[in-house]
């Protein structure tokens, strides 16, 4: 019990203020969350799941918290003009954790029954749906940040797509960190898809100011029977940004979920993905890229729980580590008793470009059913010398050859991403990243600063 005490005190002193800036379902879970934090504390290096990322220490500084929900004065339209070429999206913002609409999204009319908006507002307007879903996947009793997030989260994004509704246009949520002081942000995203519903969501994480930030983020996604969810999470922040995210995915029968995690530029990142199959015949595809340098750190942890039979999960994570960067990947696949005909494949490949770069990888299989096909593979190595030689022989300069090989290396993951217009953009960003330029687009203030 070290750093959490400070947060317990802040919570107890400001409970009324926190509740006042939020709404019903969010406030209802705070007492339980407090109890969990008091019992379990913050996730620290002593826990196997957090061996390589000491998240508890991230909570040590005296972070500012905007509990009274002061307006931060961000002109979102000015701040962000970052488009994915050839992809038209409905754009939404979370400025820190405050929801805002873009002009286009405000004018767009969504199909009947669809809700895309502030979670706080949803708690008032769709109380039944929010109450029956909010906090039901995020397990506050396991090591993690679900408890502390639930204590402080006041707003976020809610997406509800009723049965049979297909959203043709992808939604894009841009989260912008902006503050005159060092700030801790606790945000929440709740996605509920009805039977046969379809949704594509692009999450873009940016930092608008050069201050230090700590973000805790919980995403809970419910994929109803026969539904389809594509979730793309792109992180392009800066070196002073600490981000700890937990994604919880619940898949009912015959649903398809793709979740991709791309860390192009960051400070320290920890992503945990907990995915559960509760209905038969579902598919899950989890992919990840981390291209990091300097002192950056990316730790992706995935836990795929095959509770029922006839489901398929595929995972592909690739890291390129330069300078003093460090990476960690831990992927666990649990096939429970009776989950026959499970197919699961997990691959993690990593390239260390310097002597100081460090990679830790830990794929795990835990299997209690016999009629299954499960495999995992992990490698840590360098660029293929033979391929380098081949290209040099043909007159390609060494630097260029390295670049091409690294691009091809992460290109495999990009190729797995279902949203094709994203390929070009990611390829371009990755190339810039490898060329040593900041991995940012030029269009907006978010990237220029």
């Amino acid at each position, binding site marked *: 019990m070290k750093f959490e005490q400070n947060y317990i005190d802040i919570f107890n002193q400001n409970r009324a203020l926190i509740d006042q800036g939020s709404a019903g379902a969010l406030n209802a879970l705070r007492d339980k969350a407090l109890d969990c934090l008091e019992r379990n504390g913050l996730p620290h290096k002593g826990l*196997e799941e957090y061996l390589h990322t000491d998240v508890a220490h991230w909570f040590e500084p005296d972070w500012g918290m905007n509990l009274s929900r002061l307006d931060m004065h961000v002109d979102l339209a000015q701040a962000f003009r970052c488009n994915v070429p050839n992809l038209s999206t409905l754009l939404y913002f979370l400025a820190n954790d405050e929801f805002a609409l873009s002009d286009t999204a405000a004018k767009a009319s969504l199909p009947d029954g669809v809700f895309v908006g502030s979670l706080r507002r949803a708690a008032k307007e769709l109380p039944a749906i929010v109450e029956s879903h909010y906090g039901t996947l995020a397990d506050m009793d396991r090591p993690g940040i679900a408890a502390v997030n639930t204590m402080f989260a006041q707003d976020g994004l809610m997406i509800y797509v009723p049965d049979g509704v297909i959203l043709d246009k992808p939604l894009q949520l841009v989260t912008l960190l902006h503050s005159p002081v060092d700030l801790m942000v606790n945000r929440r995203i709740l996605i509920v898809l009805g039977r046969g519903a379809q949704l594509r969501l692009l999450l873009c994480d940016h930092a608008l100011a050069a201050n230090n930030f700590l973000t805790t983020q919980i995403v809970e996604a419910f994929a109803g029977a026969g539904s389809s969810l594509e979730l793309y999470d792109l992180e392009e922040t800066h070196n002073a940004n600490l981000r700890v995210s937990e994604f919880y995915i619940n898949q009912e029968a015959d649903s398809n979920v793709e979740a991709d995690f791309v860390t192009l530029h960051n400070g320290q990142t920890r992503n945990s993905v907990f995915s559960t199959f509760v209905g038969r015949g579902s598919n899950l595809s989890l992919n990840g890229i981390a291209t990091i340098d300097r002192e950056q750190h990316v730790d992706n942890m995935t836990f795929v729980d095959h509770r029922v039979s006839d489901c398929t999960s595929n995972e592909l994570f690739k890291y390129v580590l330069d300078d003093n960067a460090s990476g960690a990947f831990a992927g666990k696949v649990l096939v429970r*008793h*009776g989950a*026959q005909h499970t197919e699961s494949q997990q691959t993690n490949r*990593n390239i*260390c*470009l*310097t*002597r100081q*770069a*460090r*990679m*830790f*990888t*830990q*794929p*795990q*299989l*835990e*299997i*209690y*059913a*016999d*009629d*299954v*096909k*499960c*495999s*995992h*593979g*992990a*490698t*840590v*190595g*360098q660029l293929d010398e033979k391929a380098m030689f081949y290209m040099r022989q043909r007159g390609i300069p060494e630097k260029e050859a390295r670049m091409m090989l690294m691009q091809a290396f992460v290109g495999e993951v990009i190729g797995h991403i279902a949203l094709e217009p994203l390929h070009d953009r990611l390829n371009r960003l990755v190339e810039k990243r490898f060329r040593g330029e900041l991995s940012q687009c030029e269009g907006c203030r978010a990237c220029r600063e």
Partner: protein
Amino acid sequence: MDTASQDNSLIREISAEKYRYGFTTDVHTEIIDRGLTEDTVRLISERKGEPEWMLEFRLKAYRHWLTMEMPHWAHLDIPEIDYQNISYYADPTVKKQGPKNLDEIDPQVMKTFDKLGIPLEERLALSGGVAVDAVMDSVSVKTTFKQTLAEKGIIFCSMGEAVRNHPDLVRQYLGSVVNYRDNFFAALNSAVFSDGSFVYIPKGVRCPMELSTYFRINAAGTGQFERTLIVADDDSYVSYLEGCTAPMRDENQLHAAIVEIVVLDRAEVKYSTVQNWYPGDENGRGGVYNFVTKRGLVKGVDAKLSWTQVETGSAITWKYPSCVLQGDGAQGEFYSVALTNNWQQADTGTKMIHLGRNTRSTVISKGISAGHSQNSYRGLIKVGEHADGARNYSQCDSLLLGSECGAHTFPYMDVKNETAIVEHEATTSKISEDQLFYCNQRGIPMEQAIGLIVNGYAKEVLNKLPMEFAVEAQRLLSVSLENTVG
């Protein structure tokens, strides 16, 4: 008798027949009182006639053990162990009366080892055979071919004898690979260890025969805590085999051993184990808890250590034979077949720690789970900052026979050097129905077909065993799989 109870009695018969080493020997054994205190440690040291430094070593370990807690990180469900309800020293060689003649072995003990297929008469051994150190409970009963080996300068004796006769070597190397602070069971062993084998192969000597230690638990209410130390000096070679069995009892018996190996320049050590402690009955009653720390320091340039293990016994196995690849060009190998049936649990694997340049390691692990058993592979590949050109390849396959068992893989890779290449592959699947069908079609009954396929699956590892062991291991795999059909 109804059909169900008939079936049960049949199962009982088969399982009783299955573990053919489950008998006990009625031999006068002096067992010290149960419990573990500083006095127990002093008593063991006194019984073994040890010098003061050895007692100090034990006491330091005991005091450290008191500050430790039993580890719970393994994927094992270990019932509470009452360390005060175990006797830590049992000597079956003490005569009831009459003068002590150390060379004379109780005929009952001789018979026991004969029955186990371990001839203690040198004349009975196969030509060019195997030198055996036979350990029953806490004491080494006999070491064969000592004279033949001594002619080449090889020391092969019990640990107790080594402490008395070669104190300098023992002091130099004992605890140098597995420190008493290493883990809970290492501390316990360092405090109360009894006989194991001590091997020293001098410079440039290739050991002319296989060396072997056979461990036997006989007395009830005891644990076995043997300690083995192998030192292979420059340019030497030795192949060492280890076998073990225990009687069938309803109580669980604890076996917590330490094996330390030091391999110097260009030397090679091959360490093979066929572990066949009593696994418990079909309801999970009884069986040995096998909590072992095995580690080799591959210290020399171009030195090599190879671990091969066939694990079919024990109720619970907690064992990770490891290589610390310190010398430039050092090589480590780990070949393992771990079979669990009924209610057995195994959490086993290896650690390859690459410290020197151009070090290489290979890990091949084959897990087979049947019945209600749980079988885990846990391994660590660590590449240090200075281990330029380190290379590792790991392959872990699991085979599931039955829907009630579990197969798990927990590999860890920690790479701190950009020139390293580390590869890991793992697969889990059930036995191929096509292969079974093919065998059945040709008139091979189901049980035999499974045995055949499993042996083929494990062949990559079995091939690494010395011949005598390979035959035994193949038979063991087939026997352990009896009754897994359906």
